[in-house]
């Protein structure tokens, strides 16, 4: 555990990618095998499920710190991270502790079914025993992600440095459904044969946003153009009579979308498709907001299946007749995909083909991009016709060319303290738009990003001086500042007070030049919805 805590401390204390990778590689060379497996699991969000409720953790920590519950909560609001708060308020201790990371994880798995009193005894005993940083890491293992800026890509690179196994191969091995309690480092990382894992997805190939002029991509006829659908990237696997659906976040979501299970009969074994999971009603694409009613729900009601049925819009085929097609040219893969979808054995299944276009000029491509909103897409994808299916985010062969965001001028109304590196700064803002009478600001969106650190500091100082009311971590502020808010999509919504849902709202700029009265109204916003 000491070694793991030291690793987290090092990763947490540097912004430099090379130093992070070096620290991880060193860890992968030196740590015991079981700990390495757990470290990979933790850094790829495969923690065991939480053994205790966080409300209990708060109570037990306040108890050890000998402070009232409200004071613990206030402190937590300011620190912004539960594990860190606990590590800070519990009295210091520096006892020696040699227990390994995997032993701690085994403890936590065993702890899950136990009674509250036993859980409390175990956790308080360890809080008392561990030093500040180890206590923080121990608690983080219970509560959640580390937010230390280590992507799957960095971890794979470090593992490559430690083992000499190529990164692409490692990325593939680490995908999918494996259990860190039972798998060995040998099986997970070093072993050659991984074919026995029928649920295993391929790493997604991700595109960067296009930089500069699109015509710099060269001959337009070498590029395949398609719309960039606004759903969830998904990989659909049919192998050995079973179906698996993976989201881009490497989450197995098969059970959430029962209406897709019919594809098990429609597709032959040894087929893997890459596509977009979307709400589709009789061939019409729903909004991301529609899809949101399905995301995160494990049990789906009949009503929901009728109102928000999903389908896969396929754009690529990665495996066909059990063979990996990823090295083939995009154009060839598309031929296979189109032939497959043209003669499915069952009709009316929730599987559609994402249409591709070939254009004679970049102007024509640009015109197609202008049609994105009416086609309910976020813009275009440009894929080189000869491109292989690569691993992870790579430049060169695939580009996304999104439509420019919609924008509106809104007023800052509420603020909340941020998390992570924004701890103790008010950086999470709520924005309002004027009602018809211009007498009241109606909340329409929250935004957390888009200002520079300097601007955040400036707004933070202003908020602290212009607070109207405090509600726990949230403050209402005097309506004064106008910000230009950008967002990707817009739709009617019953769940929002404003009646409108916006997609990925963020701050475009601080409009210090605009007066409060010059902010837009809710009616202006509603006018942007494409009916």
């Amino acid at each position, binding site marked *: 555990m000491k070694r793991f805590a030291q690793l987290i401390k090092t990763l947490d204390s540097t912004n430099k990618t090379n130093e992070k990778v070096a620290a991880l590689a060193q860890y992968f060379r030196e740590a015991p095998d079981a700990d390495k497996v757990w470290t990979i699991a933790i850094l790829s969000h495969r923690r065991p499920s939480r053994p205790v409720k966080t409300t209990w953790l708060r109570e037990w920590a306040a108890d050890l710190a000998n402070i009232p519950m409200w004071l613990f909560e*206030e402190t937590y609001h300011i620190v912004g991270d539960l594990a860190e708060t606990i590590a800070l308020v519990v009295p210091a201790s520096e006892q020696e502790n040699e227990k390994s990371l995997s032993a701690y994880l085994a403890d936590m798995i065993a702890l899950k079914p136990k009674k509250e009193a036993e859980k409390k005894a175990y956790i308080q005993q360890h809080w008392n025993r561990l030093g500040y940083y180890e206590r923080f890491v121990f608690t983080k293992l219970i509560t959640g992600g580390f937010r230390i800026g280590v992507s799957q890509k960095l971890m794979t690179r470090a593992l490559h440095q430690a083992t000499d196994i190529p990164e692409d191969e490692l990325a593939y091995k680490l995908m999918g459904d494996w259990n860190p309690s039972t798998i060995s480092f040998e099986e997970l990382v070093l072993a050659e044969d991984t074919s026995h894992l029928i649920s295993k997805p391929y790493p997604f190939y991700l595109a960067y946003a296009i930089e500069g002029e699109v015509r710099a991509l060269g001959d337009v006829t070498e590029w395949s153009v398609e719309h960039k659908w606004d759903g969830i990237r998904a990989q659909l696997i049919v192998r050995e009579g079973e179906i698996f659906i993976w989201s881009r976040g490497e989450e197995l979501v098969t059970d959430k979308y029962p209406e897709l299970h019919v594809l098990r009969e429609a597709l032959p074994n040894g087929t893997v498709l890459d596509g977009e999971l979307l709400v589709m009603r009789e061939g019409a694409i729903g909004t991301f907001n529609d899809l949101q009613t399905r995301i995160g729900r494990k049990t789906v009601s009949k009503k929901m299946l009728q109102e928000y049925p999903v389908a896969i819009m396929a754009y690529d085929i990665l495996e066909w007749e059990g063979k990996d097609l990823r090295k083939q040219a995009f154009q060839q893969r598309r031929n296979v995909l189109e032939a497959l979808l043209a003669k499915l054995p069952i009709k009316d299944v929730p599987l559609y083909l994402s249409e591709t276009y070939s254009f004679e000029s970049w102007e024509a491509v640009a015109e197609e991009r202008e049609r994105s909103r009416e086609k309910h897409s976020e813009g275009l994808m440009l894929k080189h016709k000869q491109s292989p299916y690569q691993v992870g985010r790579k430049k060169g062969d695939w580009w996304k060319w999104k439509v420019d965001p919609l924008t509106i001028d809104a007023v800052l109304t509420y603020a909340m303290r941020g998390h992570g590196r924004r701890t*103790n700064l008010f950086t999470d803002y709520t924005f309002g738009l004027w009602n018809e009478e211009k007498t009241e600001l109606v909340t329409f969106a929250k935004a957390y990003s888009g200002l520079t650190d300097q601007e955040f500091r400036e707004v933070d100082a202003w908020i602290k001086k212009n607070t109207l009311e405090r509600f726990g971590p949230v403050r209402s502020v005097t309506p004064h500042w106008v910000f230009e808010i950008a967002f990707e999509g817009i739709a009617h919504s019953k769940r929002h007070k404003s009646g409108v849902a916006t997609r990925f709202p963020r701050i475009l700029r601080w409009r210090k030049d605009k007066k409060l009265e010059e902010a837009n109204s809710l009616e202006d916003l509603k006018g942007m919805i494409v009916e």
Partner: protein
Amino acid sequence: MNTPLLAFNDKGIYCAAADVYLDPWKPVSKAIISHGHADHSRWGHQQYITQEDNVPIMKHRLGDISVTGKKYGETFTINNVQFSFHPAGHILGSSQIRVAHKGEVWVFTGDYKTENDLLTVPYEPVKCHTFITECTFGLPAFKWRPQAEVFEEINGWWAQNQSEGRTSVLFGYSLGKAQRLLKHLDPSIGKIYTHAAIENMTEVCRSLTDFPETIRITRDTKKEELLGNMVLAPPSAHGSPWIRKMVPYVTGSASGWMAFRGARRRRAIDKGFVLSDHCDWDGLLAAIEATEATKIITTHGYTDIFSKYLRELGYDARTEATQYEGENVSEDAKEGKEVSE
């Protein structure tokens, strides 16, 4: 009710009986000053009274002012009100201000810390009826380790950087933190270079106590000579062109805010050392208890939370609005102001 001995108005903490202000933030005729930081000793008063060690510091910062220096514990009387300065342990020349009138005693802390930093005259508890206290770090999340441990860590960090062929750049504000760091850096590891703002202030402080030798960084300082040595710089130097001369360097920051991981990352500092010239949570509670005061007024920091907790402990505690910079402006912003003057 009678007029309270000290009241808070839009200019500062006012003693009506003596017609003087304590640490006023707007120009007044007579100001009694706790210490030399910019938010407590401002420009523009007609007459200043402060502890004698603070006189050269204030003159350095504010130029030609009319200022009288008093010794710690020396009582002076204005309109039958007795005033005296008592060590606050915050920075060199920092004081609590005791105000006594007709048997009633109030103490205003300015800023203070209870740990003996072996640089300033250590904090002394002063018994009073009403205690006006800062609470910059008035949350149970703030618990300082003994400074000996922190300096062991800092000197170890310096030696480590040196062995890796890198210069150590340590940020601390130029009045207070810089001198405390300097006092405890180990000169056997290497040379200690200083940013001009810190060198100028330290020169003033050398009349008050001994410090290791320092070398001012000027335009003529060679890049090569800095390598492996220590550079003390104000936080505002972070990310400025000035720092390019130190390449290859590692940055460290010494501040109470470094207790928060987020604060370290936000400032993009390589290494954070938790070292403050303010009281931590336990320090505040112990200090309050030692005064035997029943009435507590909090002035800056996590005032609402801290006074609510004090009320639960049975104190008659409240918060008064001031313009001292606790939560709002962290130490680096304070520094920025100071440097730009």
